[in-house]
């Protein structure tokens, strides 16, 4: 099924793109991560120009998170107050990200910066999550109750002034902490074309110490609005949002998201976290190798 993409200026196999979207969707529904960290690199690998890939992947993540937000919202799994603070930070971060993007682009280092960021982020978060989930699993197998967590949130969070009660998250912390987290997520969304979920979920768990049953829903809520901001930002600045590409990805991702959410209800959270950690590590490793291996094309050409 050949489909011509009007903005990317090339013909692609539509079924492959739908499949790619489905993969994103399953990850989205299952883990509350956008899955953009997988879509964007794969699209680029398929031959879609990087800017178009990042811009269109963002709008796909929007679609995949909508149904997720509804699904989790009905189960009371979204902390709207926390989500609101995160979104405010995220929109701020999108603006900062757009500025950084154009600076790096002028320097010709955007590709390297994106790859390095991916490797650092995926490597550190992947290993953190893998370590935590393996420890939990081993403890469960030995029949010992997992050691009670000594602290709810990172000690630095407690130092921030101004405290709010976030009932659903079970937290009494400064809103500045989630706001800063949102800014970081927004910057990453703009730069990497990702929803930022794979940063937000672990950060919510380990830095903010949110209760686990609202983490996925709240993360999806934040991703929903930050990807909307990113899509608009790209439409206005880079003109790189490809509706046809986005539509194909959406067809796959919205159905994948539903499937993912169902699997998520059956599977055990610890196993899920371990699987996500392994996927994250694998992608990170692949990108690290890509940085050190001699690339197929030493040259790249950019239209001025």
């Amino acid at each position, binding site marked *: 099924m050949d489909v011509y993409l*009007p903005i990317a200026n090339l013909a692609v196999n539509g079924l492959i793109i739908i499949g790619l979207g489905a993969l994103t969707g399953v990850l989205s529904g299952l883990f509350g991560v956008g899955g953009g960290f997988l879509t964007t690199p794969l699209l680029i690998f398929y031959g879609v120009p990087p800017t178009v890939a990042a811009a269109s992947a963002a709008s796909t993540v929007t679609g995949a998170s909508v149904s997720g937000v509804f699904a989790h919202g009905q189960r009371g799994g979204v902390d709207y107050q926390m989500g609101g603070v995160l979104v405010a930070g995220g929109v701020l971060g999108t603006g900062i990200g757009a500025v950084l993007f154009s600076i790096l682009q002028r320097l010709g280092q955007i590709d390297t910066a994106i790859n390095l960021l991916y490797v650092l982020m995926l490597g550190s978060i992947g290993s953190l999550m893998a370590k935590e989930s393996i420890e939990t699993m081993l403890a469960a197998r030995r029949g010992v109750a997992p050691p009670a967590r000594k602290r709810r949130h990172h000690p630095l969070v407690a130092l921030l002034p101004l405290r709010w009660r976030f009932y659903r998250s079970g937290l009494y912390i400064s809103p500045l902490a989630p706001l800063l987290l949102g800014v970081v997520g927004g910057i990453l969304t703009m730069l990497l074309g990702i929803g930022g979920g794979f940063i937000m979920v672990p950060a919510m768990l380990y830095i903010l110490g949110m209760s686990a049953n609202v983490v996925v829903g709240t993360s999806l809520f934040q991703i929903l609005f930050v990807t909307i901001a990113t899509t*608009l930002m790209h439409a206005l600045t880079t003109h790189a949002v490809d509706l046809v590409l986005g539509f194909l990805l959406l067809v796959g991702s*919205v159905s994948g998201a539903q499937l993912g959410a169902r699997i998520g209800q059956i599977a055990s959270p610890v196993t899920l976290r371990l699987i996500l950690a392994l996927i994250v590590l694998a992608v990170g490793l692949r990108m690290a190798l890509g940085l050190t291996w001699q*690339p197929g094309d*030493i040259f*790249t050409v950019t239209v*001025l």
Partner: protein
Amino acid sequence: MRVLAALLAFFALIGAADPILVPDVSQHQVQVRQGFTGTQLLLFGAILTPEGTRAGRDYDIVVVLEGPARPVVLREKEKVAGVWVNAHSTVFRSMPSFYAVASARPLRDIVDERTAAIYELGLDSLQLSPAASIDPAQQAHYAQGLVSLMRGKGLYQQDEHAVTVKDQVLYQARISLPSNVQTGVYTAETFAIRNGRVVASAISEVEVVKVGMERGIEDFSRRRALSYGLMAVAISVLMGWAAGRLFALV
């Protein structure tokens, strides 16, 4: 002796008045619409004498199809501290977005390097007009890199078996346009070459345009960027919501 030679040359030239080429293209407009996966262009024509009769001599026919030129920056990666990063860059003021040359036999057997450079015949002879003056060896290195990159994308082609000439009068060349071509006006230039000298040339044009929905989407994204962005968001949200409702029923 010298006079004799000059006379001989003079008669030889009169006997072989430069031919004229009457070129045409199978499609003057290539329409890029949904399902476009590239197309093959047939560039054909006749070799005639100025009087309009059959030229009746063997000429080498070379056809060059060139897409709109744009200024580009070319970057070269180098390994720095174990990581491949863009280390060098150079600007070319006019890089054709598409370049294909078709001939019946290897170009180096048809023309010498100088002629090839003058008429831009062949991928090694492209004039990319570098913006900065750098030393020729470095220049050639960059040009080679650019050509091999574009070749890999199928946007630069050199086919030395793509031209046929029938009965010394009708020629035809086949050039394929991949799906990732830029829109714009393409020029197809046909050269008749004899004894390493270009004796005639003629130009025809091919326009690559987006039509229908594809054109609409591209125009929309540029002219009304905000509405376009909002529409993209609306589609995503609606599809996501609809899928949620649909699956809830299952």
